[in-house]
């Protein structure tokens, strides 16, 4: 409720007293004088309730003065006698008490209305922020409300996680002193470290007083709102700070919620992506490999069919269809492996494996490509048990053997050796091929890398070594390419972790 103009108030009091006098004049023509003082109590009560103590006292004094007019002889101002003095004292006491009471009630009513307005504002704020989809929208909503509450333009600065400050909202024609940025950075840091009060007042050497408000979660400041407070004293009104604080708290909560829902959304998205990828890989795997399996199977039946089996040219053709189909299948497998690696779906299933079994399985897996090649084996006497995913490491070894077969000259031997070196099993595959120069030692593990010097060598997707590297490293192993130089052969070495539990000698159980 707004306070009325004092003059108007006192004019109203005069009118009230005049009305009471008119009433009294009417009353005295019918009744005794005793009622007159009671009639003059009415303007006192009304003034006290409506306008407060001051106007009520004025009404009391006027009333007491006018009461004397009604004592005989009528309408003569007389000296106050005892009854009139008692009337006056009573009126004054009533004016004071009622005025005080009414004043207090009025005050409370005012506060209640203010609170109601604040709550409504906060409620609207909450609603607006709940609908906000991103942090910037929340900053702008909070800034709008702060502008209303402070009745001053509000500037918004975004604080990046690395401490950078960025102006996101500056009211028009509003200078921003250079020192403000430093003050904001200090405030953001201090408040993020030990959140105490989200509002503070700073005095800049040349920029006057600024009210700084912090928005953010635990140990993190997202944004700082700043408003210049030149026309206010050194300390902002407590009420203003309290209001600003509740707006900021609401804003900070919304930011927290937003962060949370964003994280949930991201996780859901990732999960959906994973599921989609699994489905895709499964279906690609099925859709591509099933026809390949049909081709290979059909070719194998044809190769043995009467009429073809007896004609070497035809058996050769049928055999070629079959072996090409198998090659295609391996390519598809390679692509699927790369997809698996790229999408992070590679999870080794560790098992204890006899190293000899592993190498033998790989040699069998690479048999088709090793056919006709001289293989030298140099195994230590008693190979240890490894702790690896046998399928992944077998594939890595097959890729190394395929590579050696591809690049080594057909007449030269491929050597495979295995021995324990410093708590690791080292498996080396050596070919007599074109070797590597210094740069190639790393490059060959890159996807789709194929040496320029031997681009004429047919086949290969350039994925084999990249896959081998990832598979070996996923199992806690290492892989390296060694070469004495161009045309002096290549040695691929992989080192694999041993199992904790190793067999003892050939004693009986």
């Amino acid at each position, binding site marked *: 409720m707004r306070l009325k103009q004092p003059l108007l108030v006192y004019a109203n009091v005069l009118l009230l007293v005049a009305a009471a006098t008119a009433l009294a004049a009417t009353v005295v023509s019918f009744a005794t004088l005793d009622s007159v003082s009671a009639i003059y109590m009415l303007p006192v009560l009304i003034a006290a309730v409506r306008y407060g103590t001051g106007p009520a006292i004025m009404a009391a004094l006027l009333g007491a003065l006018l009461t004397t007019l009604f004592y005989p002889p009528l309408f003569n101002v007389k000296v106050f006698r005892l009854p009139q003095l008692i009337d006056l004292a009573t009126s004054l006491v009533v004016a004071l008490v009622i005025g005080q009471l009414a004043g207090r009630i009025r005050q409370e009513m005012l506060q209640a209305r203010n609170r109601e307005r604040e709550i409504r504002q906060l409620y609207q704020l909450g609603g607006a922020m709940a609908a906000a989809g991103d942090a910037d929208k929340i900053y702008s909503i909070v800034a709008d409300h702060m502008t209303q509450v402070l009745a001053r333009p509000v500037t918004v600065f975004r604080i990046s996680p690395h401490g950078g400050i960025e102006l996101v909202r500056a009211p028009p024609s509003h200078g921003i002193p250079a020192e403000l940025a430093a003050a904001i950075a200090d405030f953001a840091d201090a408040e993020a470290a030990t959140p105490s009060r989200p509002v503070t007042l700073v005095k800049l050497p040349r920029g006057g007083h600024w009210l700084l408000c912090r928005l953010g979660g635990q140990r993190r400041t997202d944004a700082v709102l700043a408003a210049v407070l030149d026309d206010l004293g050194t300390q902002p009104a407590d009420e203003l700070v309290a209001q600003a604080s509740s707006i900021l708290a609401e804003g900070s909560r919304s930011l927290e919620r937003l962060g949370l829902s964003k994280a949930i959304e991201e996780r859901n998205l990732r999960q959906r992506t994973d599921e989609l990828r699994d489905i895709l890989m499964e279906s690609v795997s099925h859709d591509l*490999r099933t026809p390949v399996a*049909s081709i290979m*199977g059909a070719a194998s039946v044809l190769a043995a069919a009467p009429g073809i089996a007896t004609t070497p040219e035809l058996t050769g053709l049928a055999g070629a269809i079959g072996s090409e189909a*198998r090659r295609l299948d391996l390519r598809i497998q390679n692509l699927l492996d790369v997809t698996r690696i790229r999408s992070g779906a590679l999870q080794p299933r560790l098992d204890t494996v006899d190293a000899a079994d592993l190498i033998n399985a790989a040699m069998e897996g690479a048999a088709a490509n090793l056919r006709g090649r001289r293989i030298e*084996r140099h195994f230590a006497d008693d190979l240890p048990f490894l702790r690896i995913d*046998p399928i992944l490491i077998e594939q890595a070894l097959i890729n190394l053997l395929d590579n050696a077969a591809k690049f080594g000259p057909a007449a030269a031997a491929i050597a495979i050796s295995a021995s324990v070196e410093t708590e690791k099993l080292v498996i080396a595959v050596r070919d007599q091929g074109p070797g590597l120069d210094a740069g190639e030692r790393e490059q060959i593990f890159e996807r789709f890398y194929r040496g320029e010097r031997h681009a004429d060598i047919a086949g290969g997707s350039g994925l084999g070594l990249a896959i081998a590297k990832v598979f070996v490293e996923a199992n806690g192993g290492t892989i390296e390419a060694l070469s004495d130089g161009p045309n002096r052969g290549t040695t691929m070495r992989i080192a694999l972790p041993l199992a904790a539990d190793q067999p*003892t000698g050939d004693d*009986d*159980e």
Partner: protein
Amino acid sequence: MSEATRSTPPLMALVVDDEPEIRRFLRTGLEMRGFRVVEAQTAREAIELAVMRAPDLVVLDLGLPDADGASVLAELRSWSKVPVIVLSVRSSEAEKVALLEAGADDYIVKPFGMAELLARAGVVLRRMATRAAPAPVLRVGGLTLDLAQRIVSRDGVVLTLSPKQFALLRALAAHHGLVLTHRQLMRELWPHDPDEDVQYLRILMKKLRNRIEPDPARPIYVVTELAVGYRLRTQEQFDAAGYAMAIS
């Protein structure tokens, strides 16, 4: 012609696969070897045909439209001992192990050639025929196993095996040519404590190979199916692996 198909009447094979082209080459290949072939596209059809036609061999694909092959296998095994060869895909070793333990006799990884499948079929059918009366003496390459007299010899030289080593060899011989998973062997060798550490089995296998294999680092008789189990080769499997033998 394999001996399994020379008998009369001809053996019947049930081919279960939802891919028509796969069924087609399997039918042609099997018929060329003297089998009669019935085909099923779904799990339901497979069970019906298995009941009505009583096949001598089932070739079972795992990816069926109405149920997975594993449930077909489980249902089949509840009343039938018919040999089952599962068609599997790479990179599902755990699935292969589960199927073998659920009663599949062997598996073959897609893509495969007809010769491979016929070889496996020959092994499971022969085992079926000799299950009642196992051959008292097995020969693989230079290795001779006289199970009745508990004598193992290689190239005429008698080998000394511990009782446990012999038990392992005998368990593999009982499924000659077929894969036995680690768990299946554990149950056979440690019947009172089948959940014992598999490491015991690996070590026992290493010791057995040290005794019977000419080069224990490159076994030619008892071979490892990586991440699945072990297999005692038949003479045919031994001969087919001849290439690997050429590696010096």
